[in-house]
C-alpha cells in the first residue's frame, strides 16, 4: 500500500508536471492568438491537478482515454512535449505526423489512446481497453477522463453497467468544470454525476479537482483497487475551466455571455498550481530555489518545443492515403 498523502518529492513531481501543462498551454494560447496554429485548441488551464494527480499513479503500460481538451492528459501520462506541439503545428514530426492535431494527440506506445473530438467517445474505448487488459492479466489499468458535459452521453451508463458486471480495471474520472461548451452544468446535467455510478454499485469519490494532493489520494485508492482486480471506481473532480471553451470563443459568441468575469476571477484565486507553489515555498529557501529551477527548466522546454515544431517540415500530405489502412490502399 502506498502512503495516504504524496511525499515532498512527489509533490515536487506533481508541481513540475502541472506547470509543464500550464506553461505549454499558455504558449499555445499565445500562438493561437498570433495566428500560428492551423486548428482550434481547447485549453486545460486551471484543471491541471486532475490529470496530474491521477496519472502520477499510472505505469507506462497503463492506458488512458482523453477528450477534446486533451493536452493535459497527454502530458500527464508522459507524452512527448515536442511531438505534441509539433502535432498542433501540423508538422511531420508531430506525434500523429500532423494527421490528428490538437483534438487527437495520442501515443499508443505510452498507453495514450488519444484525445478525441467526439464527446463521450472515451467511455466505450476505455471499457474495451479495460476488458482487454483484464483478459491479458498483466495488471494494466485504464483511466477514462471525461467532462461533466460528456456525462450526459448514454454510453456512460452503458459502460458503467459493463464495468460493474465484469469488474473491469477501469477508473472513471469526471472532470466537472461546470460547463458543457456554453451551457452551465445546472442547465443540462441533472443530479450529482457520481450518483449515476452509484446506481451500478460502483464506488464513488468526489474530490476537489483543484487540490492535486486530494486528487492524488483518491486516484491512488481507485487505481490500486482496479489493479488488484477489485473493479471500477468513479471519481468526480470539481474544477473550473479558466479559458474559453476554445480559444477565440468570443468570435463565436458575438458579444453574448455565459458566465461572469467575477466567477472566473474567483477560480483563478484557487489555482491548483499557485497554491501548491505557496505550500512548497513555505517549506524553505531550498524549496524556493527548486521551484525556480523547475520554472526556468519548463520555460526552456516549452520554448524548445515550439522551436522544434516551427523548424519541422510540414506534414506529408500523401500520408492521408498511406496511413488510412494497415498495408492497404484506401
Amino acid at each position, binding site marked *: 500500500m502506498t502512503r495516504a498523502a504524496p511525499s515532498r518529492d512527489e509533490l515536487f513531481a506533481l508541481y513540475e508536471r502541472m506547470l509543464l501543462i500550464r506553461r505549454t498551454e499558455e504558449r499555445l494560447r499565445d500562438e493561437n492568438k498570433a495566428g500560428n496554429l492551423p486548428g482550434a485548441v481547447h485549453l486545460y488551464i486551471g484543471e491541471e491537478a486532475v490529470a496530474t494527480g491521477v496519472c502520477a499513479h499510472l505505469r507506462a503500460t497503463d492506458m488512458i482515454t482523453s477528450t477534446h481538451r486533451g493536452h493535459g492528459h497527454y502530458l500527464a501520462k508522459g507524452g512527448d512535449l515536442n511531438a505534441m506541439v509539433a502535432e498542433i503545428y501540423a508538422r511531420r514530426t508531430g506525434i500523429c505526423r500532423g494527421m490528428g492535431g490538437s483534438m487527437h494527440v495520442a501515443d499508443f506506445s505510452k498507453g495514450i489512446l488519444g484525445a478525441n473530438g467526439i464527446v463521450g467517445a472515451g467511455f466505450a474505448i476505455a471499457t474495451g481497453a479495460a476488458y482487454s487488459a483484464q483478459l491479458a492479466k498483466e495488471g494494466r489499468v485504464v483511466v477514462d477522463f471525461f467532462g461533466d458535459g460528456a456525462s450526459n452521453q448514454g454510453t456512460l451508463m452503458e459502460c458503467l453497467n459493463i464495468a460493474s458486471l465484469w469488474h473491469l480495471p477501469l477508473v472513471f474520472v469526471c472532470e466537472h468544470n461546470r460547463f458543457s461548451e456554453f451551457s452551465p452544468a445546472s442547465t443540462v446535467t441533472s443530479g450529482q454525476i457520481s450518483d449515476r455510478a452509484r446506481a451500478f454499485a460502483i464506488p464513488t469519490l468526489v474530490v476537489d479537482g483543484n487540490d492535486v494532493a486530494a486528487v492524488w489520494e483518491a486516484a491512488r485508492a481507485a487505481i490500486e483497487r482496479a489493479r488488484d482486480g477489485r473493479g471500477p471506481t468513479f471519481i468526480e473532480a470539481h474544477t473550473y475551466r479558466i479559458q474559453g471553451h476554445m480559444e477565440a470563443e468570443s468570435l463565436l459568441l458575438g458579444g453574448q455571455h455565459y458566465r461572469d468575469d467575477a466567477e472566473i476571477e474567483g477560480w483563478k484565486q484557487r489555482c491548483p498550481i499557485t497554491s501548491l507553489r505557496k505550500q512548497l515555498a513555505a517549506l524553505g529557501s531550498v524549496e524556493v530555489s527548486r521551484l525556480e529551477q523547475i520554472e526556468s527548466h519548463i520555460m526552456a522546454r516549452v520554448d524548445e518545443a515550439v522551436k522544434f515544431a516551427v523548424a519541422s517540415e510540414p*506534414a506529408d500530405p500523401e500520408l492521408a492515403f498511406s496511413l488510412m489502412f494497415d498495408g492497404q490502399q*484506401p
Partner: protein
Amino acid sequence: MAKKRYIHAINEALFEEMERDPKVIVFGEDVELAIMGDCRGLLARFGRDRIRNTPICEQTLTGMAVGAAAAGHRVILHLMFSNFIYTGMDAIGNQMAKMRLMSGGQARMPITVIASYGGGGANAAQHSDTAYPPLLNLGGINVATPATPADAKGLLKTAIRGNNPTFFMEAGGRGGEQGEVPEGEHLVPFGKAVIAREGRDLTLVAIGSMLKPALAAAKSLAVEGVDVEVIDPRTLVPFDAAAVLASVRKTGRLVVCDEARERCSAASEIAALVAERGFDSLKAPIRRVTTPNVCIPYAPNAESRVIPGADTIIRACLQISPAKTSLFSAAAQRAAGDLLPGA
C-alpha cells in the same frame, strides 16, 4: 432583395417560420447561444419553450425529434457538425426514415435536422466529414444542400413546412458568403435543380460547397474554350434527374463534384443514374470529383490535398472535354494529364 450572408439567410428563414407557425420548435446543443450563428436571436424572440439547449446526447436527440413530431410539433433539430449524424444515426435510420411506412402512413414526420458539413478548417477527421451519403441510402429522408444564401433561405423554409424528415446540410465555413436573398415568402421547391451557368460542352453537377469552385472552374475553362454548364441540384433527395439528363443530352459530357468521400457518394449516385438513363447522350466517360476514400487529415496541406477544389474540377473537365482540347494551353494540357486525387 438584399445582399446577405449564408448564415443570415438561414437565420432569417428560422425567424420567419417560427413566427409563422407556433408549432415550430428548435432544440439541440447550445442552440440558445447559437454558436453556429444560424440560431442567433431566436431565444430572445421566442423564449425557451420554442428554442432550447439540450444535454449532449445525439442518440436521444434524433429520437426525440421523431417523438415530438409524432406528438404534433414541427421539429428543428440542430446537430452542429455532420459527423454527429453518425452519433445519432440509430433513430435516423431506424425510426425517422421508416416510421411513416411502418405505421402504414399514419405517422407524419415534420422534422428538419440542421448539420454543417465539410472540411477546410483544420478541424480534423471528426469535425470535417461530408456525411450526407449515408442518409441518401436510408430512403425516407430528404436531403437539401443549399449552395447560396437565397437557396439556404428558401430550402430551409420548404423543409420546415414539409411533412417529411429533411436534413438541411449547411456548407461549413460558407456562413460568410454573400448573396442576394429575397425578402419574406421565398420558398425553393424540393427536387428542382438550377442551372447556375449555361454551357454547351460539358455538364458539371456541383453539390453544395462545390458550387463555388465549380463556377470558378467553369470560368477558367471558358478561357480554354470549354463551355461548361453548371447545375446545382439543390436537393439530393428528391433529386431532379430530369434537369441533369436534359443537360447531358445537350452536352454529352458529365462531371459530378461532391465534397463527400467518393465511394457511395452522391456523385456516384448521379453518375450511376446518368450511366443508366442518359447513356445514349454520353460522348465521354463520366468523371467524379470527390474527396478520396480517406478521412480528413488535420494538416492544412494534407487537407487541401484531399478536398477537391477548382483545380481538381478543371482537371477532370479537361480529361473528358471535346476535341477542341487540342487548342488548349500547354498548362491546361499538363493539368489534364494529371491523375485525379486518390486515383
